[in-house]
């Protein structure tokens, strides 16, 4: 896209007015980038057909900084919602896309974000079918917020529910944890430290789909441990089931640099946010086969079993430490706060 033909350098309040400036922004950037038969109707909404059971998920993205090592808020907004739909055992098809932009955002940043959204949407096989753009005064936003809602068709073999979880089920994670959160943290104001940690934001819907094709209802649950990390998601699951959860510290997949960064900053990787990571709770007899199938896929290269569902300590997550001790894993309370010393 030739930015000079746009005739403006920054987004201003006029672009959210609903008038000609809005139309110009939409025509020159949004419609041009995302063109498809549903969006091209330029209607207030989109009329779609999904023949099977439908899964819907919505999410708002407010990340700072908006550009980070390994991605930006745009692809995060696509991958995050696509993955949430995939976690329902569904094949993501359509996405709505709503921006809240703070006036003054540079147009090249906006276009970069839009282009990333397009690439991420294409890669995960979803169409942007409807959307919205609002502009708020300077100081009333943080550059840009994005909301996406995803619609997917539930996989015919899927039966994803915490109700299906049984004692003996294995808990599998598809790859390194805590990477995204630490990539963001390493670039936060006042915390910058040299590292090559890169966010692993990516879609996982093709992998989950492939697993459902093969293992169907032997997969009892998919969840993505985004905010609050693995600890918070497992704690939530434990509360919803009649059994307990046991995980093993020395099985947690943790990349060396991420482990070191967590150590230095006094953060527990179990509570650090993830993207492109999912947890699968599956029947024990398919766990090994599933892990080896995941290991053959780029998105599951480092998949491992981190624990299991137990009859002991119902509603609680207990971690076996690397020295043979045990501790309760509780959900994150507020933001994870670095310790003093």
């Amino acid at each position, binding site marked *: 896209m030739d930015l000079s033909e746009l005739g403006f350098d920054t987004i201003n309040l006029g672009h959210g007015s609903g008038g000609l400036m809005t139309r110009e922004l939409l025509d020159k950037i949004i419609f041009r980038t995302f063109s498809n038969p549903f969006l091209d109707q330029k209607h207030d909404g989109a009329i779609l057909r999904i023949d099977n059971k439908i899964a819907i998920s919505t999410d708002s993205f407010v990340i700072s900084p908006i550009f980070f090592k390994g991605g930006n808020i745009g692809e995060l907004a696509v991958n995050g919602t696509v993955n949430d739909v995939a976690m329902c055992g569904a094949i993501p098809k359509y996405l709505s896309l709503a921006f809240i932009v703070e006036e003054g955002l540079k147009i090249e940043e906006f276009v970069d974000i839009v282009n990333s959204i397009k690439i991420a949407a294409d890669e995960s096989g979803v169409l942007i079918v409807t959307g919205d753009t609002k502009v708020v005064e300077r100081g009333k936003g943080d550059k840009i917020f994005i909301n996406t809602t995803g619609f997917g068709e539930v996989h015919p073999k899927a039966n994803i529910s915490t109700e299906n979880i049984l004692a003996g089920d294995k808990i599998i994670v598809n790859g390194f944890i805590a990477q995204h959160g630490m990539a963001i943290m390493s670039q936060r104001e006042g915390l910058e430290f040299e590292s090559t940690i890169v966010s692993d934001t990516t879609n996982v819907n093709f992998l989950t789909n492939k697993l459902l094709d093969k293992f169907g209802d032997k997969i009892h649950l998919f969840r993505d441990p985004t905010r609050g990390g693995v600890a918070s998601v497992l704690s939530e699951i434990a509360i919803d089931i009649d059994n307990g959860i046991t995980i093993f510290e020395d099985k947690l997949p943790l990349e*060396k640099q991420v482990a070191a960064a967590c150590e230095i900053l006094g953060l527990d990787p179990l509570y650090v946010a993830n993207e492109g990571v999912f947890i699968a709770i599956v029947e024990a007899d398919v766990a090994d086969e599933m892990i080896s199938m995941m290991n053959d896929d780029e998105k599951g290269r480092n998949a491992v079993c981190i624990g299991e569902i137990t009859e002991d*300590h119902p509603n609680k997550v207990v971690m076996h430490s690397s*020295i*043979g*001790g*045990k501790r309760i894993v509780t959900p994150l309370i507020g933001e994870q*706060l670095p*310790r*003093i*010393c």
Partner: protein
Amino acid sequence: MKYLSEYRNLEATQSYLKLIEGSITRPWNIMEICGGQTHGLVKNGILELLPDKVRMIHGPGCPVCVTPLNLIDKAIELLENDVIVCSFGDMIRVPGSKKSLMEAKASGGDLRILYSPLEAVNIAKNNPDKEVVFFAVGFETTAPANALSVLHAQKENIKNYSILVSHVLVPPAMEAILDDEFSNIDAFLGAGHVCAIMGFQEYYPLAEKYKIPIIITGFESLDLVQGIYMAVQQLEKGFHKVENQYARIVKEEGNKAALKVIHQIFEVGDREWRGIGVIPSSGYRLRKEFKDFDAELKFGINNIVVPENSDCIAGEILKGIKKPFECSQFGKKCTPFKPLGAPMVSSEGACAAYYHFSNNLISS
């Protein structure tokens, strides 16, 4: 990770646990001074692996926990008067008399969470029309960096920077605990990081006066069980010496460069400890030459006095007289969601450590 993974080794840790089991003949009460050690004991499940005869008592070494209520109110007062307040992370959720720093931030205060006070000096430099205060809490460990921030500001002639000092010292607190009539401590695990700065010469008279073993101990699993083993050996044999388990980090004379900076900026003075009260000569205050950097004087907030919450037994917890679950409010009126006192907030606080990790809760 060099110097970390070796100290989280299963076999080595278990061999020390066996040695403790094999040599202990009666119950001993051992207090780990530092909150980081409490955290390590609970997080790694060590408490459960120790023989019943080893009774670990959690000491007062959590800087967040011992910072008195009025200091938090002072920081909030600054926030509400357009001052940029910079703080270490785990301080911000501690309740003051009316609200926490986090709540004051939500009401519009400009609060920054930092890892280093030197960053606060940069913020002051970049915001010359604003006053910037660093909330300088902590034990001897954080004192050098806080002192250094004052020296930097002075060198660069930055006038809009000051620190709200609440520095406390370990040895006077140990003495106050030993002097308490309800205290029943048989040995101490000394705070490794504090001694990395200060050395451990000042512990010799304490060990002698109170006939108590003091083992300067690190923070990893192996450090902790080795420190406990060394304490048990002394107790069983009737010794009371200062020993250094953490020799890979701690030198007897401490870190001379850090000590020089501390003594240049700070002098020893009386300090109030949350839940314990004023302990004579138990903290640092800025020397007169640096009074321009003293936020309490600069903003006239040194008269804010507030009573402690009477439902909270933080004082008894910090002195090791009571365990967190012996508090009637534990897990009921007082949780990390709505803490009554600081030990429930900081991840190093004994109450929060028990709430989050303890096996006392696994079967309940």
